[in-house]
């Protein structure tokens, strides 16, 4: 039996005495997009950050391919990290402003693969093409790029790690409507081509309805229901 890509089990988070959320459970299958809907301040971003290991929940389990990442050793977890990636809400701070776009794009490759310069260049260009970036975008500093272009670069650099699972935290809420559609369509295309799964966090129900297979509703710190959107996906 194969495990789902990600299973979250009774996740809970407390800051001091106030409970941010509790009893959060869901799982995401390969190639599936799960939407997470909630108001601002409902703790949905914190859930996403817990999954990628940027914050430690106060209770519960997070299983990636059946392995609990919370009880893992530091080294072991670092090895697993490339498989679970995150896209953030604010494009303007998502890339290092002191590095040009291309350097930002291939950074994960430099960290993880021992690729030589030539193959780095080649792989970088492949990724750029995959995400619809043109060469003139790649020689600029992030300050000279638009929000949509930056989110493309972010996607490209994430795809460099060939992840299994991506947490997308409001990836388009700072973008214009016409660009939002571009990015969401690109994410769908990447899913079709690589089978990656998404947790799409948003306060925009219409967006979630359009691109998700299932939507989890977060209310008062817990998931009240998970709705199936009929998109003909096999689970």
């Amino acid at each position: 039996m194969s495990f789902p890509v990600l299973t979250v089990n009774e996740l809970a988070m407390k800051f001091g005495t106030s409970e941010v959320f509790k009893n959060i459970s869901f799982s995401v299958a390969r190639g599936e997009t799960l939407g997470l809907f909630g108001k601002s301040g409902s703790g949905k971003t914190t859930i996403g950050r817990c999954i990628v290991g940027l914050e430690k929940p106060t209770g519960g389990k997070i299983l990636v391919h059946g392995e609990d990442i919370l009880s893992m050793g530091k080294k072991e977890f670092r090895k697993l990290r490339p498989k679970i990636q995150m896209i953030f809400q604010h494009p303007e701070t998502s890339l290092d402003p002191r590095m040009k776009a291309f350097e930002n794009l291939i950074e994960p490759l430099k960290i993880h693969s021992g690729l030589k310069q030539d193959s780095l260049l080649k792989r970088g260009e492949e990724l750029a093409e995959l995400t619809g970036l043109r060469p003139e975008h790649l020689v600029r500093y992030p300050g000279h790029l638009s929000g949509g272009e930056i989110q493309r670069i972010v996607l490209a650099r994430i795809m460099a790690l060939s992840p299994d699972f991506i947490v997308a935290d409001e990836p388009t809420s700072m973008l214009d409507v016409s660009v939002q559609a571009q990015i969401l369509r690109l994410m769908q295309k990447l899913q079709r081509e690589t089978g990656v799964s998404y947790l799409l966090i948003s306060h925009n129900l219409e967006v979630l309805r359009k691109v998700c297979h299932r939507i989890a509703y977060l209310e008062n710190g817990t998931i009240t229901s998970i709705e199936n959107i009929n998109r003909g996906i096999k689970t």
Partner: protein
Amino acid sequence: MSLLEIRGLSVEFPAGENAVKAVSNVSFEVEEGETFGLIGESGSGKSVIGLALLRLLPESAVISGEVIFQGQNLFSLKPSELRNIRGKKISLMPQNPAGALNPVLKNGLQIEEVFEERRVDKKEGMKRSLKLMKKLFLTDPEKLCTLYPHQLSGGMRQRLIACMSLSFEPELLIADEPTKGLDPEAKAGAVDLFTKIKKEYGKTMLLITHDLDLALEVCDRIAVMYAGEIVELNEASKVLNTPVHPYTKGLISAQPRNGLVPLRGQSPSRIKLPEGCFFNERCRCSGIECSKKHPEIKKHKGGWVRCHFQSLQ
């Protein structure tokens, strides 16, 4: 005669050796009693128009054109005359309610000062304001006045600002991006707020927004802006239901509920605008003419469209 008439308004911001063309040659009229919507994506120049009307842009901005309000050209008024219009005849509801209230002054004082300059008794004015606040869904307004802005929620701040702007029942209310940065719930509240303002005060309103839902709900006529100019102008329902200009079409079908169809590319650089149609690069049905000649805005089916092929669209 219309209440507000804008003729050939252009705004440039000098940036180093170049200039950013924020608004180029915009003309439209707002009739008495109507709600006119200016819609467009970020950077389309819509907010700049709102600020330019009341001469609130920084001094470095180069402005040309005419703004005729009740027969007066606002651009040739003396500062003291202009002050008589600001806040009294034309009010502005600025975007970003958080930044528009002075953080170190109590809310009460910030409401009160509107009356100070108008030879209206402060107490009388405050009474009126408190009534207005209640009407605009603010509970316990007396207490609000003793608080500081940071102690209010985003939605409450917006209502407070709305209340200040409506103190004198202005002839024209300019609302700049009232739903920007608000929660979905507060956003829904804003729609209620503006429907109410429109119904109860019935005065002329210029609504600047990127929110098509709000525009459809509240506006009578809409002008769609792209890269600093108006590309389409018509009745709200016509623009949003049967758009003519390819950009408007694209904008509408990019909405999630209309299919999330992406518009390719992005707005052109405003320092070096393209020679032909500004939308040419992103347009799905551009012809040879489009890359060479900049289209003029022309009458089309009761509205105005800026496209070489409007009759084909």
